[in-house]
């Protein structure tokens, strides 16, 4: 991956130019996995676009953070993870949730604040959780969930279950204390935690480079925990799939944690309110041109997948997104009594006798 520098108001920042991705056509990924990866990319892409549309229609409440442009990471890990592995996501967690097999309708319904939402409307976009699918929560305060993922990994190790805990977080998260505590803890106790930094070059509005002592915010910290630096192209689903498969295998066999830095870019702003104007137009354009969905479609075409097969997948996904939208929209508002349930294990919220 070449990272020539472009400059803009905030300083100098790397822009990925399309590398010779054709060389990656030769990566050892089975054809059916590739089809699966493409389906996932489409799901994540089309879902997020729909979420954005619903936001424009003022149906999505609160905030939401989309993964448009970053889909290859969730697709690759989703395809490589074992059914009982654990996912720990952030507020930018739609893609990671869906990629574990959580149906779209309850996720959309949660964004709309409906009773048929994934958490009945009590969590919202930033806290998607589906324990049944191994999605152990989406965490909206930077840092904590890296430590929490370790706990699930520790428990898996004690139970000898072979499960791995995979924790996704952004570049900005590498500068907070909990990152350091979690990485050292995982390494010291050789926990099966895979830490995945989705480096999209920006925190909310500030470029990561302006406030970070090293060039590669995660990879350049790996050695501080006795780990290998893994710096990969987060826009290439095959790269992400093979990276995920290797990392998971290593963690699963007891070799301790893995730290992956996947470089990517978000097409839109940080959250619903942000048009993302602080980024230079050429930078955005360069990354739009290196779109993970298009890149992968081109590869599949080169590898002989028929245009009509690809189009069928796209159309199918589109239908499912439409159906999920209809289902979500038809959900009733939550009963207000629900606000008083599940504070405690007894199902209620009483703090007195």
């Amino acid at each position, binding site marked *: 991956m070449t990272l020539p520098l472009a400059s803009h*108001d*905030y300083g100098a920042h790397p822009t990925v130019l399309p590398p010779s991705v054709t060389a990656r056509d030769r990566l050892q990924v089975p054809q059916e996995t590739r089809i699966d990866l493409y389906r996932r990319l489409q799901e994540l892409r089309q879902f997020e676009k729909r979420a954005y549309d619903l936001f424009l229609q003022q149906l999505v*409440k*609160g*905030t939401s953070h989309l993964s448009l442009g970053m889909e290859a990471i969730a697709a690759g890990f989703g395809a490589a993870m074992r059914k009982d592995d654990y996912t720990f996501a952030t507020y930018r967690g739609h893609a990671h949730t869906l990629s574990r097999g959580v149906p779209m309708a309850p996720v959309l319904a949660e964004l709309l*604040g*409906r009773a048929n*939402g994934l958490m*009945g*409307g*009590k*969590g*919202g*976009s*930033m*806290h998607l959780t589906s324990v049944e699918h191994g999605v152990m929560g989406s*965490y*909206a*305060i*930077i*840092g*904590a969930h890296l430590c929490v993922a370790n706990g699930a990994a520790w428990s898996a190790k004690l139970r000898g279950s072979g499960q791995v805990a995979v924790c996704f977080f952004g570049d*900005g*998260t590498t*500068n*907070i*204390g*909990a990152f350091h505590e979690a990485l050292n803890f995982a390494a010291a106790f050789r926990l099966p935690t895979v830490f995945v930094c989705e480096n999209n070059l920006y*925190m*909310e*509005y*500030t470029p990561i480079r*302006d*406030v*970070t002592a090293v060039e590669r915010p995660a990879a350049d910290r790996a050695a501080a925990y006795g780990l290998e630096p893994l710096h990969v192209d987060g826009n290439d689903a095959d790269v992400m799939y093979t990276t995920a498969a290797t990392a998971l295998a290593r963690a699963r066999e007891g070799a301790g944690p893995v730290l992956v830095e996947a470089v990517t870019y978000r097409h839109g702003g940080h959250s619903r309110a942000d048009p993302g104007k*602080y980024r230079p137009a050429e930078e955005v354009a360069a990354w739009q041109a290196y779109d993970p969905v298009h890149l992968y479609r081109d590869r599949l075409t080169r590898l002989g997948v028929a245009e009509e097969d690809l189009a069928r997948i796209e159309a199918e996904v589109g239908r499912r997104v439409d159906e999920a939208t209809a289902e979500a929209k038809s959900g009733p*508002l*939550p009963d*207000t009594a*629900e*606000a*008083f349930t599940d*504070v405690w294990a007894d199902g209620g*919220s009483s*703090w007195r006798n």
Partner: protein
Amino acid sequence: MAELTYRQAVARGLSQEMDRDERVLLLGEDVAGAGGVFKTTAGLLDRFGPERVLDTPIAEQAILGAAMGAAMTGMRPVAEIMFADFFAVCWDIVVNEIAKMRYMTNGQLSMPLVIKSGGGGSLRLGAQHSQSIENWAMAVPGLKVVTPSTPRDVVGLMAAAVRCDDPVLFFEHKGLYAAKGAVPDGEIVDELGRAVVRRPGRDATVAALGLMVPRALEAAGLLATEGIDVEVIDVRSLVPLDTRTLLSSVSRTGRLFTVEENPRLLGWGAELVSLAADECFWDLETPCRRITTPHIPLPSADNLEDAVLPSVARIVEEVRKGVHT
């Protein structure tokens, strides 16, 4: 006199103080280039330059540590903790260091700093981005705590906070950022520790903070049509607490209601009620009542959030019921 939004008033207040005193610095996540994620610091980078207005990494302990160390050595920093909920990631620096240092060193160190933060609910942001935590801060000796409810007070209290030689936690209410209000021209400087009677009344004292102030006022208007004449006090400053204004009102009306956004247990109203139940004991005609969010995390769905935050209707109902006890 200008009509400003609450969020504009924050920048206006900061600007006023940064103009006056070059030791005043501003640091936080996205406060410079982006003008703040809530746009409360818009224009300050251009006006005061990158030395005095600093975009930081996501590292709240580093942010507050830097503010503290600078305050100890001659500066007067204003640090932003983006959402009040995030105080939890740097609570140690706030409560164990900033709050205690002057005392532990027998007065050797001064801590003239402000920590500004957006708190409160009503924006459907769920349990981790909606908390009102003024009560957390009130419980810690060594911290001053203010929450303005109008654009004018934002400017005046910010100026007072910046000029104070003690650490001040300055809570902005996210639900008020878009609210507009008249702000007089020229320098505005309030005094910390002064509550304001927003509406005089004889039958009951209603003490409110932040977003609950406009709600309490609206409720008072409705109650007036029923013949219940309520005094609404904007508490504004929890530490120092204007017990003179608050308790004399309670003694006069014989009734106290607090309207609090925080969860029920140990909300700031518990302190006020405890004070009234002690010092106004013989004047009370009916039990003091706290109108609060129930003791639960905040849900995100709009109808659920509306159901649990104190609403105008709930204030009306509770006061009516309380007065007729």
